[in-house]
C-alpha cells in the first residue's frame, strides 16, 4: 500500500472519524479518502477498535448488585422516610388506590383472557418438588448469571434484558418486540429530510425500547416485516421436570385511545443516510437482531373493539411436537399479532400455557401506536444531496 500522498496527520483522521472536523475540511478530506488506501486503512483501524470495545461483555453479576443495593436501600429506608415530605393527598384512600393499581398491574401481568386463570406455574403431573410455592411473577427475575446465559444468552446474543423476563418457579419467560423493521413516529407537515434523534451508535436504540418515540404500526399485515411481532423465549430452569407448551396467547395489557394521523418511517438502520459521510458508520442490511431458529410460530387477531385486558389464543403454525421443553432447555417463539382497528396505543404481553393448565404471562412490550391514516416516510426516496451537510446526523426522507 502506498503511503498517503498528502501526509494527512492521524489527528485529522481521528477528528474526521469523530465527526469533529469543520464542514469544509470534512468535505475535502472525504474526497481525498476516496482515493487514498492508506487513510482508509487507518480509519479501518479506528473502526476495528470501536468494534472490539463494543464486543466486550461485563462479568458483573447484576443480580448480586441489585441484592446488595436493595439491602443498602432498606437499611437507609428509615432515614429516607423520615426526610420524605408528608404528602397530604396520599391519605388512606390514596393508599388504597395505589395498592389497587399495583394489584391490577400485577394481575394484568399474570392473567390471560382465554386461558385458565391460574397464575402459578405447576409442573406436569409427574413432578412436584421444584416449584417454589411462594413464587410470584415479577419482572425482575432471580436468575444467576449462568442461568441467564443458558436461557437467554443464546441465540439472542445478549439482546434480551433482565427487565424483559418474568420468572415463576421453574419457568422463565422473556418477551420482546421482534419487528425487525420497527416504525417510528415523525412530525406532521414536515417536508424536508427528518433528522433522527435516537442513538446511532446503539442502532437507534430509543426506537427499540420506546424511550423517545412510540413505535408505529400503520398497516399490520401478518407475517411481513411491518407486522406487529412479539418474540418470546421460554426457559425451563428445572433439572428434572419436562414441560409441554399447550397454547400461546397474547393479551392487551394497556390501551390508550388515539386520534389523528401519523407519519411513519421504516427503521433507520436500513434506510437512513448520514449527512456528510456515507462510507462509514451506517450499518447496512438492517440492524434488527437475529432470533435464531424458532420453535413456535403463532398468529392471532384481536377482534374489533378489543381493549385493555382482552386476550386471544394464538394459532400455532409450526410443528406442535416441537413444543416440549426438557430440563434446562428453552424454546423460542414468534407471535404475529393483528391489533384491533381502533386507533390508539397498544401494549401487548405474551401468555404461555402448559399441559396441566398452568399459565405464565410475560412483561408487556413497549407500546405500539396504531392509526388508520399514515404517511409513509422511506429512505429509498431520499438522496444524499437533499440532506443538510451540517450538523452531522442521520436522516430519512419523505417519499
Amino acid at each position: 500500500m502506498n503511503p498517503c500522498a498528502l501526509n494527512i496527520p492521524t489527528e485529522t483522521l481521528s477528528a474526521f472519524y469523530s465527526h469533529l472536523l469543520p464542514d469544509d475540511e470534512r468535505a475535502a478530506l472525504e474526497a481525498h479518502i476516496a482515493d487514498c488506501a492508506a487513510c482508509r486503512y487507518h480509519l479501518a483501524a479506528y473502526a476495528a477498535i470501536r468494534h472490539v470495545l463494543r464486543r466486550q461483555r461485563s462479568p458483573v453479576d447484576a443480580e448480586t448488585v441489585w441484592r446488595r443495593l436493595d439491602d443498602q436501600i432498606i437499611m437507609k429506608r428509615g432515614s429516607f422516610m423520615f426526610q420524605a415530605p408528608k404528602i397530604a393527598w396520599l391519605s388512606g384512600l390514596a393508599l388504597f388506590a395505589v395498592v389497587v393499581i399495583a394489584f391490577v398491574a400485577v394481575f394484568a401481568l399474570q392473567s390471560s383472557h382465554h386461558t385458565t386463570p391460574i397464575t402459578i406455574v405447576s409442573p406436569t403431573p409427574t413432578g412436584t418438588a421444584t416449584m417454589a410455592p411462594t413464587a410470584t411473577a415479577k419482572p425482575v427475575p432471580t436468575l444467576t448469571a449462568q442461568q441467564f446465559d443458558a436461557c437467554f444468552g443464546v441465540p439472542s446474543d445478549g439482546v434480551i434484558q433482565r427487565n424483559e423476563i418474568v420468572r415463576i418457579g421453574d419457568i422463565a419467560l422473556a418477551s420482546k418486540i421482534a419487528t425487525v423493521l420497527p416504525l417510528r413516529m415523525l412530525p406532521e407537515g414536515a417536508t424536508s429530510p427528518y433528522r433522527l434523534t435516537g442513538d446511532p451508535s446503539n442502532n437507534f436504540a430509543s426506537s427499540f425500547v420506546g424511550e423517545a418515540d412510540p413505535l408505529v404500526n400503520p398497516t399490520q399485515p401478518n407475517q411481513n416485516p411491518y407486522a406487529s411481532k412479539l418474540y418470546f423465549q421460554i426457559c425451563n430452569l428445572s433439572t428434572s421436570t419436562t414441560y409441554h407448551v399447550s397454547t400461546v396467547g397474547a393479551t392487551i395489557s394497556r390501551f390508550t385511545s388515539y386520534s389523528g394521523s401519523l407519519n411513519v418511517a421504516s427503521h433507520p438502520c436500513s434506510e437512513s443516510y448520514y449527512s456528510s459521510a456515507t462510507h462509514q458508520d451506517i450499518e447496512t442490511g438492517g440492524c434488527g437482531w437475529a432470533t435464531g431458529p424458532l420453535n413456535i410460530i403463532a398468529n392471532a387477531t384481536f377482534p374489533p373493539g378489543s381493549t385493555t385486558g382482552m386476550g386471544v389464543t394464538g394459532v400455532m403454525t409450526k410443528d406442535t411436537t416441537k413444543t416440549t421443553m426438557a430440563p434446562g432447555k428453552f424454546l423460542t417463539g414468534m407471535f404475529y399479532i393483528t391489533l384491533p382497528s381502533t386507533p390508539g396505543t397498544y401494549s401487548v404481553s405474551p401468555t404461555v400455557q402448559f399441559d396441566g393448565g398452568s399459565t405464565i404471562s410475560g412483561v408487556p412490550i413497549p407500546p405500539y401506536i396504531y392509526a388508520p391514516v399514515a404517511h409513509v416516510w422511506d429512505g429509498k426516496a431520499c438522496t444524499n444531496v437533499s440532506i443538510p451537510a451540517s450538523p452531522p446526523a442521520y436522516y430519512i426522507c419523505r417519499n
Partner: protein
Amino acid sequence: MSLSSAHLRERWQLVMASMRIPPEQPAARSDAGVQAHDAVLHQEFEAFFWRYEGIISRYLWQMVGDQAAATDLCQETFFRAWRHFARIKDHPQVRSWLYRVATNLAMTHRQHQAMHLQSTLDDLYPGASDPGRRIADHDLVTRTLQALPPKHRSVLLLFDVYGHSGSEIAEMLGMSINAVKMALHRAREQFRREYLREEGLE
C-alpha cells in the same frame, strides 16, 4: 373470569409483600401515605435499575478492568441514583447523569487503587508495579484499554461504545471540545499501537 376469594387473598398478600408493606401490621394512618409513596418509588427504582444496569456495569468494568471493583462501583452509582431518584428519574439526561457519576467514581477509585497498589507492590516486589504485569491475567482488549490514561479511556468508551457526541462528552466530563478531540486521538493511537504490538502485528 372468576376468582375464588382465597385466590384473591393470596394475590393481595403477594402484592403487599412485593411492595414491602407488612401484611399484619397496618401502619399508622399518618405514615401510610408516605409508606405507599416510598414503596411505589422503590418499585420505580427497581425498574430503573434493570433498565440501566447493563450499560453502567459494563462501562465501569471497562473503566476499572476489575470485576469486584466494578460490582462495588455499580452498586455505589445506583445508590447515589436512589438518593436523588425523585429528582432524576424523569430527567431527559438521566443517562448522562449516570455516566458522569460512574466516571467520577471510576477515576477516584483508580487514584486510590493506584496509590495503594503502588506502595504495596514496591514494598514487596521492587519493579513489580509495571502496569503490564499487574494486569497480566486480563484479556488483550482489557489490558490495552487499561494501559490508557483514565481520562482518555473514559472519552474513548463514551464516544465509541456508548455513543455520546464530542460535545456531550465535553459537557459531561467538564472538558473543552478540543480536549475531547485530542483525548480521542491519543486514545485511539495508543490503543492501535499497543493492540497491534500485543498481537505481534507491528
